[in-house]
């Protein structure tokens, strides 16, 4: 697939890295040629330097040949202009645009075909905010993902001694909660995936991925660990775009404190926030943390721009008594270093936000992609089309489908109904199938399964 990415910032470069590893032909455009050189050192991409909203620059990037344009420059306006040009002058079939301003995001007309004609508007900060809000709603979870418009949830939970199911085989789950249809999609023991069957025994420390209807998900988690107290007090370190969105999303229901170093930013924050308390200071200043009762915090979220600051402030907060600490970490090596250590949850912004983009790059009709375990594993939602002849899934029982080892169909959403996948469940046309892939290398094979063969028109 030929892809043009406009903007080589944080989002742009991580998208480039992710997609380049999947055998795509990628061109990256940015005004800053130093940044482009830096990217080219790491990833095999073509680069064009120049203003992404100029037609000549777009032409240089061979945009007329590409299948997908992803506009993720810093400026909403540049992205929108580039999108319109790509559609009008270069006939780019699919255009994804990153937008920050809610004014644009909420106005259907602006994004519609008569105006800028955006196929998909993404807001990474919002995705990340939703991700963290979910973690606050489900304080026991490491990650919460939704499929089929929120009907089905996939949660990652660390099993703890004391959970009823811990130390017992998975088939006992049905005995414990007979009225809930749930499925353990995968278990990670250390870094090794275990493909579970009914006899797999859950051990303390396992990272368990459970899939269930969203309303039942708490019951399932309860099987694996005792429940935490609900979160009431949250401290947010860093009042940037994410910190502000997060505070706004939470301030009505939780007691929020935001720490921000920049005084002028503090003024903006305190104006935009109604209830949250804005504190000026260094996020790693232990005196400030102590004065603001860090030991009473149910959750400490570090969302500054700086990995090291996030990590240090989280470590400090944990040491000083915060119940749970969550850190935003951009560098992948740091994420692997810290996850499940002192820091309860390390979130990689790129991984959290890339799912929406990935869905458009995938072959077949994939509607939702979530990166799991820092991008090693993936959960995707695909729609199956065709009939028994043209499709390799439709009309077959799950055991008949030729899935590679390491991939499993976890659930099927049929209309409004959620069906947990059993070996004899039959797949029908237009089903949404949720597939769990423990190793990204298997993806091309999985995608092929959902493609409709050429004969089908």
């Amino acid at each position, binding site marked *: 697939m030929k892809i043009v990415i406009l903007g080589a910032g944080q989002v742009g470069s991580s998208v480039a890295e992710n997609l380049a590893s999947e055998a795509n032909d990628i061109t990256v455009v940015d005004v800053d040629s130093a940044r482009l050189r830096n990217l080219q050192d790491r990833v095999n991409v073509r680069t064009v330097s120049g203003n992404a909203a100029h037609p000549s620059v777009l032409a240089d990037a061979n945009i007329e040949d590409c299948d997908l344009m992803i506009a993720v420059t810093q400026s909403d306006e540049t992205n929108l202009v580039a999108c319109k040009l790509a559609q009008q002058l270069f006939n780019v079939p699919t255009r994804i645009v990153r937008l920050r301003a809610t004014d644009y995001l909420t106005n259907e007309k602006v994004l519609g075909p008569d105006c800028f004609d955006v196929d998909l508007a993404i807001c990474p900060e919002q995705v990340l905010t939703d991700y963290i809000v979910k973690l606050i709603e489900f304080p026991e979870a490491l990650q919460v993902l939704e499929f089929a418009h929120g009907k089905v949830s996939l949660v990652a939970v660390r099993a703890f001694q004391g959970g009823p199911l811990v130390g017992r085989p998975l088939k006992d789950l049905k005995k414990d909660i007979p009225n809930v249809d749930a499925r353990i999609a995968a278990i990670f023991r250390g870094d090794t995936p275990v493909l579970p069957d009914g006899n797999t025994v859950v051990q303390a420390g396992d990272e368990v991925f459970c899939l269930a209807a969203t309303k039942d998900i708490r019951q399932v988690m309860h099987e694996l660990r005792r429940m935490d107290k609900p979160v009431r007090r949250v401290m947010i370190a860093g009042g940037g775009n994410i910190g502000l969105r997060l505070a706004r999303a939470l301030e009505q229901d939780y007691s929020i404190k935001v720490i921000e170093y920049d005084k002028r930013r503090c003024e903006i924050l305190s104006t935009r926030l109604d209830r949250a308390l804005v*504190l000026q200071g260094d996020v790693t200043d232990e005196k400030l943390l102590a004065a603001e009762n860090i030991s009473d915090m149910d959750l400490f979220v570090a969302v500054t721009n700086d990995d090291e600051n996030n990590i240090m402030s989280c470590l400090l907060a944990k040491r000083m008594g915060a119940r749970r600490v969550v850190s935003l970490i951009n560098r992948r090596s740091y994420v692997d270093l810290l996850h499940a250590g002192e820091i309860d949850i390390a979130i990689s912004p790129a991984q959290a936000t890339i799912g929406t983009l990935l869905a458009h790059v995938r072959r077949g009709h994939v509607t939702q992609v979530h990166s799991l375990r820092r991008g090693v594993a993936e959960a995707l939602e695909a729609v199956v089309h065709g009939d028994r002849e043209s499709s390799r899934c439709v009309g077959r029982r799950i055991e008949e489908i030729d899935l590679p080892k390491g991939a499993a169909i976890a659930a099927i959403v049929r209309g409004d109904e959620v069906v947990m996948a059993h070996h004899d469940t039959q797949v029908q046309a237009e089903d949404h199938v949720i597939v769990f892939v423990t190793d990204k290398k298997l993806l091309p094979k999985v995608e092929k399964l959902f493609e409709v063969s050429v004969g089908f028109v």
Partner: protein
Amino acid sequence: MVRPVPVLHVLSVLIVLFALSMLLPFGVSFLHGDAASRAHWQAILITLASGAALWGATRFGRSELQTRDGLLLVALVWTVLPAFATLPLLLYLPELSFTDAYFEAVAGVTTTGSTVLSGLDRLPPSINFWRCELQWLGGMGVIVLAIAILPLLGIGGSQIMRAETPGPMRDQGLAPRITETAKGLWLVYAGLTLACILVFKAVGMSWFDAVVHSFSTLSLGGFSSHDANFAYFNSPAIEATAVLFMVAAGINFGTHFLAFRKLSLAPYRSDPETRGYLALLAASVLGIAYFLLANHVYPSFWTALRHSAFNVVSIATTAGFFSADFSRWPIFAPVWMLFLCCFATCSGSAGGGIKMIRAELMVRQALREIMSIIHPRAYLPVKVAGQRVENQIIFAVLAFMLIWGGSVIAMTMLLTASGLDVISAFSAVVVCLCNTGPGLNQVGPGATYASLNDFQTWVCTAAMLIGRLELFTLFIVITPAFWRK
């Protein structure tokens, strides 16, 4: 640097216009065939001649006014025009001293409504009409002053209202913005007055009473053509009408204007003052009604509520009408009413006093100080309607409150030193500074300000002007630095 000549030139035009406004009572006098018509046309001629003379003397110095000139003009308008307004009174009532006549005229244009005259029912209708018209004109002047002029001059924190003000934002000169804004406000003000006249007439007033009382209701003035004020009518329907229009007149006219233009109630909801104003009034009316009932002032709750509603709203909105002698109520009630008249009304209304917005700002500032001791590193902005209020404005409001408190104390001292009892003195200063009207004891609803001696009358006159011009305008103009080149 202030240039008095262009200011005087504008003033001369206003004097001429003011002379024309005297044609109305002259017409009334003509219609009723009362005895004051000679006083009226003489007054018109004197005013017209003075205005024309001043115009002629200053016409070589005219130029665009600047901010400082604006301050001087405002101060002059509110001190010089009342002097001309005394003319019909002085000419018709030769025994009236200039001190008392000037007090009466100032009580008119500042929409205070304290009076030195008694036997109002026996005065010619045109004289009463002139008194109430003065209040109506003064009310309009005050609304334009509060919404269009004072925010530009940056007086006492009133800049916060800038964002709320309808009309184009232009900072280069005073005139374009003021005329634009004033046009819209005139419409609302006149429309409400007309509605008030019709409703008063419908619920039983004569046309004449309906007109003069509407004038003093919408301007939150308080003059009446009867000594007994609203007790004269003894009609719950009339009182209810007056309460309704007084409450409306206590709301920012800029907000009324927006609501009329959009034909929706949304502007009231988003207005930072209206909610607090209405809640305070409602709570006070009910509270005082219960208080009166509990103290056996009135036999039934409904009677108590009727008198509480009318008198509390009237004093709180700084109108100053009365339907009962509330100074005889147990002392908590009138003191609470005096307290209300200092804070209740919204800025941009014809009401006087400190205004709701400043009170709200002060409460929030106090809470902020408390919070900042608990969280020394916190950013705690004072916000009004979701907007941050600059510290500079809060300081201005603090200074305003300080000078306000200082003025109350200083003038109370002056009045007590001159021999007035302390309750009369204090209440007189508060009601004059808030442009309310009747005070307690010697200046209470049952009495008039005629019993004060000349010195005390001048102190009260000064209090009314200081309060009406939001303290700073007058104080700035008498500062030597203002006149230095």
